[in-house]
């Protein structure tokens, strides 16, 4: 059992006060020294009090000091002796059963030994006072017989109180938490495993969603259907289409390129992906689609989250371009914002059917919005609108600093 702080759900504590030392595993050195400082800070001054009281009553400073340090040390013994011995046992890394026996024995030894120390300290005080019963006498009388019953009870209660102080101070309560700790640790491990499993499930689902988003089935199968439809009548077109589709798929799924997927996709890569997609669409739509892709050289290597742009381009094609008969045009552009040159602006502009008023499902652009929010929070701005001149204009604005961070 290692030292160090326990996970929150494993901490049980000794007194349930939430004191800092209770966050450590009981009877480890980390636990013992912090506990000794804390409880010692309460117990030692209490012990020293006896010396002060003694000194005041006896009017002898030296005698008071002698009683005081003995009493203080005996109090320190109560809180530190058993736990320290137990920590030595834990440190020895014995097998569990032997360790448990050792720790319990050490706590017991600590209680007995500190009791003896305390008794000696009090006796010293009693002797110096030179009158009344010594503590030893009290114990002898308690078991000796001819005391009236109420005295017996009184002394019994006294004894019980003393025993409680020694047991609690000596760490008997911490035994409960110590003995139960393996079970709590097991529970914790199970819970953590479960949480991790859930997390990796989520991650897997997210990856799958990304894959599905990357190769939109309508796009893939319609492209294949067009290739299949033209293969006899227009073999050159069918061939171009299949080539364009292959390039798109390679650009879309970096793992299909044979290399590891890039850790930080760049704007150039994302533009390339969109260009491939538009090439396929232009072939499919038989010349009625023209497109312009413009990315300044200076922005090519800017890191840019994957899939945002292609989602916007797909959205423009599906809802704006395909839905319109006749010639259509789409433009993809990246630039530094004119209003604020520290911001990057990426635009997808089409002259398709534009937006109709009303409620829209818009799953694709919802993904864009939530991905942007997840990656860049309020720093990112997304807007999709139909300008008065028609068509649609989607824009993503991001601070360059956020992208390069």
């Amino acid at each position, binding site marked *: 059992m290692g030292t160090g702080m326990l996970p929150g759900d494993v901490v049980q504590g000794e007194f349930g006060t939430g004191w800092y030392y209770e966050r450590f595993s009981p009877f480890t050195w980390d636990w013992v020294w912090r506990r000794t400082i804390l409880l010692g800070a309460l117990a030692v001054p209490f012990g020293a009090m006896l010396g002060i009281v003694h000194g005041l009553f006896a009017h002898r400073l030296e005698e008071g000091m002698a009683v005081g340090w003995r009493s203080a040390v005996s109090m320190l013994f109560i809180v530190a002796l058993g736990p320290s011995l137990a920590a030595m046992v834990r440190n020895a890394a014995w097998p569990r059963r032997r360790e448990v026996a050792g720790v319990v024995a050490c706590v017991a030894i600590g209680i007995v030994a500190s009791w003896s120390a305390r008794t000696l300290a009090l006796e010293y005080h009693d002797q110096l006072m030179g009158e009344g019963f010594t503590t030893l006498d009290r114990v002898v009388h308690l078991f000796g017989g001819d005391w009236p019953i109420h005295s017996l009870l009184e002394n019994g209660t006294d004894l019980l109180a003393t025993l409680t102080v020694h047991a609690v101070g000596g760490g008997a309560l911490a035994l409960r938490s110590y003995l139960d700790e393996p079970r709590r640790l097991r529970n914790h491990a199970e819970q953590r495993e479960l949480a991790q499993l859930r997390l990796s499930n989520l991650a897997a689902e997210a990856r799958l969603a990304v894959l599905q988003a990357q190769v939109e089935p309508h796009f893939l199968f319609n492209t294949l259907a067009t290739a*299949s439809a033209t293969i006899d009548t227009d073999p050159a077109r069918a061939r171009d289409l299949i080539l364009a589709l292959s390039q798109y798929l390679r650009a879309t799924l970096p793992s299909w390129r044979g290399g590891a997927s890039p850790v930080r996709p760049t704007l150039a890569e994302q533009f390339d992906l969109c260009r491939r997609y538009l090439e396929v669409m232009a072939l499919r739509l038989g010349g009625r689609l023209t497109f312009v892709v413009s990315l300044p050289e200076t922005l090519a290597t800017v890191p840019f989250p994957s899939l945002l742009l292609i989602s916007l381009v797909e959205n423009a094609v599906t809802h704006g371009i395909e839905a319109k008969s006749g010639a259509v045009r789409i433009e993809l552009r990246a630039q530094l914002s004119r209003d604020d040159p520290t911001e990057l602006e990426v635009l997808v502009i089409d002259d398709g059917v534009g937006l109709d*008023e009303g*409620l829209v499902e818009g799953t694709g652009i919802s993904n864009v919005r939530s991905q942007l929010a997840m990656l860049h929070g309020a720093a990112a701005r997304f807007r999709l609108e139909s300008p008065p001149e028609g068509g649609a204009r989607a824009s993503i604005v991001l601070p360059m600093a956020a992208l390069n961070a």
Partner: protein
Amino acid sequence: MSRPVAIVAEDETPQREALKRLLCDVWPEVDVRAECGDGFETLEALNLHRPDVAFIDIRMPGLSGMLAVAQACVPVHVVFTTAYAEHAVQAFDQGAVDYLLKPVSRERLQSAVARLRDRLVGGAPANGDGALALLRAHEHARKMHWISATVGNAVRMIPLDEVLFFQSSDKYTRVVSLRTEAVIRTSLKELLSRLDPAEFWQVHRGVIVRVAAVRAMHAVGGERYELGLEGTSERLPVSVAFKSRFRGM
């Protein structure tokens, strides 16, 4: 029996031509009367030619293939084509209509044609109303994420989760969101039928609010109450009829 009349609707020309060729090949007696490139042409052709059978792509410009069939209201045996079988397509299985996945293989088209022949002999054209109703219900159940409304002289997409309330005014409905304010011509009644009833409540004849944005209900004399919303200083009227929904607030 006279030659069965057919139409083929598909927006991508090469695919449409290939489907027509294949169809004439496996069903020589069919008379393809029209080839349509979008939903409106399809609707026109259905009404004009009153075909016995129709091969219709679901996704088409202008009007979707399904809406074209629904609006035509002519009895016709419809075979839908689609590139990807979304959940909606499951509905076809329950109706009398067949559907084909693209690219369409000769074998699959042959079996669709065999079914169509049986149906033609049996009379009673299935116009797929049942399947369409199912599809409509499915469409209705889909969660809307955006509302596109007019801001200035542009139509802008506003995320529905940022919308605080809708309020009807003379000719329009005001859409007030966290960031912007827009107008839309859709009526509150129409909006209400498509908004998630767990998220939006009608609280007044002229007001629908986002429940989660409601902060407080204020008494403004007599039986009149107003709602205070998070994210706006505007107060909205609450009808007595709707007031009880906010009991305990």
